[in-house]
């Protein structure tokens, strides 16, 4: 009964909704002026759909250290790591080396594949002959300026 429902407080506080969904109150229905948004799916942009293509294989990790700053990875940044991506040259990887997980760029150095960083203190590590194992490929870095 639309007339009665006015007296009830709605179950959801309408003002706090992230988007002006049409609620079960169906206001457009009895006002006579259908909302122009009625035909559009109530959807908002979801960062997950952009940054996380394979949720099952995606893990988040925190970066520590300053030697990847040249590639835009700073201390405390959030990395979106997708373990299902095949690594290619130029990708940023999380790799396991001697019992430690490291963030490095997979690139050619003097013609052979190396794990590189951008800090002069840490020269490129040759992949050949090392027991390095791939953990995942970094799909995105999230650097929060305001926390």
């Amino acid at each position, binding site marked *: 009964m639309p007339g009665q429902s006015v007296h009830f407080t709605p179950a959801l506080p309408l003002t706090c909704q992230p988007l002006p969904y049409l609620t079960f109150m169906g206001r457009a229905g009895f006002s006579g002026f259908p909302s122009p948004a009625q035909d559009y799916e109530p959807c908002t942009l979801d960062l997950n759909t952009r940054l996380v293509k394979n949720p*099952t*294989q995606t*893990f*988040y*990790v*925190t*970066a*520590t*250290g*300053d*030697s*990847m700053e040249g590639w835009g*990875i700073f*201390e405390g940044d*959030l*990395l979106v790591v997708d*373990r*299902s991506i095949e690594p290619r040259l130029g990708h940023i990887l*999380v790799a*396991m*080396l*001697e*019992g*430690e*997980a*490291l*963030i*490095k760029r997979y690139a050619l150095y003097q013609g052979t594949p190396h794990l590189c*960083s951008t*800090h002069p*203190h*840490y020269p490129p590590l040759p992949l050949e002959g090392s027991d390095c194992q791939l*953990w995942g490929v970094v799909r995105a870095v999230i650097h929060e300026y305001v926390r």
Partner: protein
Amino acid sequence: MIGLVDANNFYVSCERVFQPKLEGRPVGVMSNNDGCVIARSAELKALDIPMGTPAFKLEGLRQRGEIHLLSSNYELYGDMSARLAQLLRDACPEIAPYSIDEMFVYLDGFTNDQCEALGRKLRQRIHRHLGLPVCVGLAPTHTLAKLANHFAKQDPHYQGVCLLNGQGHTTEALLKRTPVGSVWGVGRRLAERLAIGGVNTAWDLRESDEKLLRKRFSVVLARTALELRGTPCMEMNALDQPRQRIMTSRSFGQPTGIFAEVHNALRRNAQRSAEKLREQQSLARAVMVFLNTNRHRRDQKQYFPNAVIALPSPSDDTRVILDAVRQGLEQIHRPRYQFMKAGVMLLDLVDAEQHQLSLLNPPTRDRHPFLMATVDQINQQMGQGTIRFGMTDAPAAWQLRCAHRSDRYTTRWDELMKVGTHPGAVAAAEAKQQQKKQQALTSTKRGTQPRA
């Protein structure tokens, strides 16, 4: 063909994904409240440390750094288990999770070679995408698949994937050297009784007369024998036999997304599970709650969440389990999904008599020794569900002792895995933090001194 995908030392493997330094080291995972060892890495097994060793006996080894002992991190294991199930769901026509680390996959219409190839591919993919080592057993029946998985784990020559036919020389040879006690559903006592009748190996059981088995033992054992011959005759629900976990799940008559309705269904399942638990005189250490949407409705949004809640101390009290179920449901329930099925799984069971009492967390304070027994008795005599539990109490504080729990890497923003940009970066950062903490501590001390 039926496949059984079983993770190797699942709890330890989950820990190793996020702590690569544990690779190749002896690692154990302890029960709630750090009571005893409930999961062991191959290296720990090699040290002859049996399952269920009380943690205090290993304290010396731990402090000397010879072994690593971790508190159970059920949130992490539950999340990894859900990922494993999802990965299989994406690759196989049908799957059925059997426990937190075992999943059946149903591969109808594939040839043996295709199944084996798929098994290898799955194994490789799970290792690559989730970092978990698994073994795959393939066979025409559940019971044989379980055995095939056992062989795949034992014998390195299979490289993690073993396919058993119902007939054939390999199957015969393997079954002949498998003690009957290793067959699924044959417990120690049953194995002893079978041995009296001259049934010692899995092969003997397979060759036994089915009618005689039914007469002398049970229908279930007769079915097991048939299954060993490659004739599928067990439904998933009948597979509960050696109960290391108890599952009760039910599909809804109509899909529902309403919290109260889902909760109601789960409460029913939890009560039934708790009854089964008491029937076999076990206690559960953890409770897993799971929900499924209807995966055949491609037009609807899909969601297959689960949550694992550790109990403060092993329990068979319906009230404790109901409370854990509510907590779990609150974690995973999302509106706007239409759920088709909900279930409760009781995990890591212990024998009620053998269970060690915890000093710090005495069993639920208001526990009444006869309450549960009385409820069960009434329900048995007057029909199931005569006495039911209504709404449970307000959330109890679950204060678990978990001094050595690793971070919950996949479920908490502030506990993510830290990865260094150069060797030693993480260690340096941790040292720095420690220093800061100490400084803060000394400065507060200084601050309080004048007042004192």
